[in-house]
């Protein structure tokens, strides 16, 4: 579904991604784990078109998307739910969700809202409320709901569990799994390697802009290197 080959991304003089290659197959949950500054968020921003790689190729659903605009990439069904939730705090919950459906022309807004409210009943209760007044967990649900409004074929999630209470973290991961079971492919960036590896099919470990390990999520979770470096055992 997604093939990234040998991309090099720079932030000014900083070489953030070095010759990085990954792929995601239809229906998978793939997770990217790694320390702060390893390049996980940079990779997601490059995939959604916010950053442009200097070299390398990105192919999504048999199309080259490196030179596409962010809008065109969203239209293809690659939707990025950014780090830090980034909800529109000055707008109501429902208006936020409508923004997620900005490019939807064929499908009915009402049906899409119902679908998202079904996944996140809490959002239905608060649909008229300003997004800025929601709790952190609710804002995360809104950010994910907003991304789902755009009918993603591949959903990029950046640190969805960041700063949430343990119980909510469980919820969020359960919902990611449900969304995936319903047919959306997921590329998940997480600090919480333990949880991420539990729901993922495959994983990549990033260090300073390079893939240093990759493989089956279960196998990686059991490997000594991962245990030592990321799971704290």
């Amino acid at each position, binding site marked *: 579904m997604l093939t990234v080959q040998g991309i090099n991304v720079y932030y000014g003089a900083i070489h953030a991604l070095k010759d990085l290659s990954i792929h995601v197959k239809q229906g998978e949950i793939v997770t990217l784990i790694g320390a702060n500054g390893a390049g996980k968020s940079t990779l997601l921003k490059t995939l959604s078109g916010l950053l442009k790689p200097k070299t390398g190729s990105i192919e999504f659903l048999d199309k080259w998307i490196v030179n596409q605009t*962010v809008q065109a990439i969203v239209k293809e069904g690659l939707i990025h739910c950014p780090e830090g939730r980034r909800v*529109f705090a000055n707008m109501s919950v429902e208006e936020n969700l409508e923004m*997620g459906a900005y490019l939807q022309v064929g499908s009915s807004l009402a049906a899409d809202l119902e679908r998202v409210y079904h996944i996140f009943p809490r959002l239905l209760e608060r649909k008229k409320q300003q997004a800025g007044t929601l709790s952190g967990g609710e804002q995360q649900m809104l950010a994910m709901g907003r991304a789902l409004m755009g009918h993603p074929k591949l959903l990029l999630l950046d640190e969805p569990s960041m700063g949430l209470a343990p119980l909510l973290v469980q919820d969020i991961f359960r919902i990611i799994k449900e969304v995936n079971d319903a047919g959306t492919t997921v590329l998940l960036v997480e600090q919480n390697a333990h949880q991420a590896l539990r729901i993922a099919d495959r994983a990549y470990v990033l260090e300073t802009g390079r893939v240093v390990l990759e493989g089956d999520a279960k196998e990686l979770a059991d490997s000594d290197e991962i245990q030592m470096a990321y799971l704290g055992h």
Partner: protein
Amino acid sequence: MEYFIQQLINGISVGSIYALIALGYTMVYGIIKLINFAHGDVFMVGSFIGLYSAKYLAAAGLPPVVVLLLSLIISMTISACLGISIERLAYKPLRKSTRIAALITAIGVSFLLEYTGVLILGPQAKGFPDIMDKKQVHLFGSSIQVESNQIMILLTTIILMLVLQYIVRYTKTGKAMRAVSFDVEAARLMGINVDRTISATFAIGSALAAAAGVIFGMTYNSVDPLMGVMPGLKAFVAAVLGGIGSIPGALVGGLLLGTVETEISSLGFSSWRDGVAFAVLILILIFRPSGLFGKNVREKV
């Protein structure tokens, strides 16, 4: 007391003009964080387009209300196009440069419009045609007098405000404008067309300034290519007073400033009028820099 109310009514009609211009300042600032100093000159252009439209339409023998409406529509439409062109040609190429570069460019565009106006139209003031007969109406049988013009102005302002409110609250473009002004990057990730949204903001702001220009012409009967400077600055003060970036703030700021100015003049200090307006700016910047309706900007940590 009646004298005071009389002046209040006069203040509100001056304030309506400030408010309409201030809306453009505040909306543009909200979306691209630029003080568009050319905005006052778009107001001037709008006024001149209104002048010529009104002249030709009245000469064609149309009834006054139709002349007014058509002049407003023509002036607002052409000025909206001017606003979009200014953004596309002057500001868009600078979107990734420093804010000071864009600000200086805005001042440059302002001079360009002013002196192109002087070149084409000449520096002398031109008379704005009387679109409507000015009748004095006594309010509720009291001795308070309202000009029929003032009633039209207030009506026009209220209708424009309601239309604006509707656009911003309920239309897809309006919602996109709020989303972009809050977080451009997140808006792009939703697939929102940021360029088109910014154009729409310039179009709406410029159209409102043009309406203010026509109203100004009807009130003061005299327009010239440099007429945009002072109302432009006053409207900027009004926008800061209300809280730059806030639409209700621009409205309240404009009306408040107009009222204060008129009351000061009516007390016999008319030469202090402009000074007071800028004193308001200084006081606001000292005591409440975010304005009456502004949000306190939190530093990101």
